C-alpha cells in the first residue's frame, strides 16, 4: 500500500480536515457484500435446529454484518493503490481522494474490534473467534498476501466469503454443525467459477494493476477448463442439503435446475473461445452464478423460515 502514491486523485481538502461524507464511509463497508453476508448468515441461522431469542439473533446478525463491512474497509485501505488503476474501482472513496487512508484504517480497525467484542458478549466467544478469523482471513491473508501473490487468490480467499453461515450457526448454537459447513462448502466451491468468469472479461484491468488472476497467469483456456471443473463439483454439492435433510423438495428442484444451468453455461464457456461469444458467455455465467447462489439460499430461507420444508428423504 502506498498511501502517498501520486496515482490518487488530487485533493483540494483543508489540511487536517476530513473530506469524507457519510455515504463515503458507507461505501467503505461494501454494502452489497454486507447484504450478501447478512443473507447467507441468516440462512445459516434458520437451517440450524435450535431456538434463539430473536433479539440475540438480530444483534448477532448485525455484528456479523459490521464485521464483514470492517474487513471490506480494511481491504479498501490496503488495495487503494491498485483500486486507483482499475476502472471498476477507481471511484472508490480512497483512490478518489475523498477519504484519507488513515481514516479508513482507523474506521476498519475500530469496527473490527467492536464487532468481535459485541458478538462475543451478545452470543458466545466461539462465534466471536470465528468472526475475528474471518476478518483476519479477508483483510490479511487474502488482501495483503494472496491477492497479489498467486492465481489461487480467490480460491483460498473465498473461504472468508464462505464463513458467515458458520459464524451465524455458532452464534445461535455455540457450536458448528454439518448444515453450516455444507453451506460454507457450497459458497467456497461457487466462488472460483463466479470470479473467474468476471476475470475473463476484466483480464486487461487486472493485468494493468498487476494482480495475478488466473486468466493472466495460466491463460484463458486453462481458466475455462478450471471453471468447468469447479462447476462439475458445485452442481452435485448444491444438492447435499437435500441428502442431509435440511433442504426439501422445493430446494431439490431449484438446486437441480440451477446446477444444470450452471453446468450448461460452464460447458459453453469452455467451448466458445473465439469472437463475440467468448465474452458474452462468461458474462452470462457471471450473472447466472449470482442468481444461482441467491436462489439456493432464498429457497432454504423460505423452506425453514415459512415452514415450507417437505423433506425428500424421510424427516429431518
Amino acid at each position: 500500500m502506498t498511501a502517498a502514491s501520486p496515482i490518487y486523485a488530487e485533493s483540494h481538502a483543508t489540511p487536517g480536515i476530513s473530506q469524507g461524507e457519510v455515504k463515503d464511509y458507507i461505501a467503505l463497508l461494501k454494502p452489497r457484500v454486507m447484504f450478501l453476508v447478512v443473507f447467507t448468515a441468516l440462512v445459516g441461522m434458520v437451517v440450524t435446529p435450535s431456538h434463539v431469542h430473536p433479539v440475540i439473533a438480530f444483534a448477532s446478525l448485525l455484528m456479523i454484518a459490521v464485521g464483514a463491512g470492517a474487513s471490506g474497509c480494511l481491504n479498501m485501505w490496503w488495495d487503494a493503490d491498485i483500486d486507483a488503476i482499475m476502472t471498476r474501482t477507481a471511484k472508490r472513496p480512497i483512490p478518489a481522494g475523498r477519504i484519507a487512508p488513515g481514516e479508513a484504517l482507523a474506521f476498519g480497525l475500530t469496527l473490527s474490534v467492536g464487532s468481535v467484542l459485541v458478538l462475543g458478549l451478545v452470543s458466545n466467544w466461539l462465534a466471536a473467534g470465528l468472526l475475528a478469523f474471518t476478518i483476519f482471513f479477508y483483510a490479511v491473508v487474502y488482501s495483503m498476501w494472496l491477492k497479489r501473490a498467486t492465481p489461487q487468490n480467490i480460491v483460498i480467499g473465498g473461504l472468508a466469503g464462505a464463513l458467515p453461515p458458520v459464524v451465524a450457526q455458532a452464534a445461535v448454537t455455540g457450536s458448528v454443525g454439518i448444515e453450516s459447513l455444507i453451506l460454507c462448502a457450497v459458497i467456497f466451491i461457487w466462488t472460483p467459477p463466479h470470479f473467474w468468469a468476471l476475470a475473463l472479461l476484466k483480464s486487461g484491468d487486472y493485468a494493468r494493476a498487476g494482480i495475478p488472476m488466473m486468466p493472466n497467469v495460466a491463460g484463458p483456456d486453462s481458466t475455462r477448463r478450471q471453471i468447468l471443473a469447479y462447476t462439475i463439483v458445485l452442481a452435485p454439492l448444491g444438492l447435499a442439503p437435500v441428502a442431509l435433510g435440511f433442504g426439501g423438495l422445493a430446494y431439490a428442484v431449484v438446486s437441480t435446475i440451477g446446477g444444470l444451468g450452471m453446468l450448461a453455461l460452464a460447458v459453453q464457456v469452455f467451448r466458445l473461445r473465439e469472437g463475440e461469444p467468448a465474452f458474452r458467455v462468461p458474462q452470462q455465467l457471471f450473472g447466472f452464478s449470482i442468481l444461482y447462489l441467491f436462489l439456493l439460499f432464498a429457497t432454504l430461507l423460505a423452506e425453514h423460515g415459512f415452514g415450507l420444508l417437505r423433506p425428500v428423504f424421510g424427516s429431518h
Partner: protein
Amino acid sequence: MAGPNLPQLTPEDIKRRRKRSMAIALALGVMVALFYAVTIAKLGPQVLNRPL
C-alpha cells in the same frame, strides 16, 4: 471556532462535519438501544420472579 493555529473551515467542511456528527450520534443511539434490548433478552422474564 478556528483559533490562530487551527485550519480555517470552509462552509462545505462544516456541512460535511455536521452530517458526520449526526451519523455518529445515530450509530451511538442504535448501539444504546441494541445493548438495552440484548440485556433485557438475556435477563429473561425470570428477572422479575425473585424473593422480596
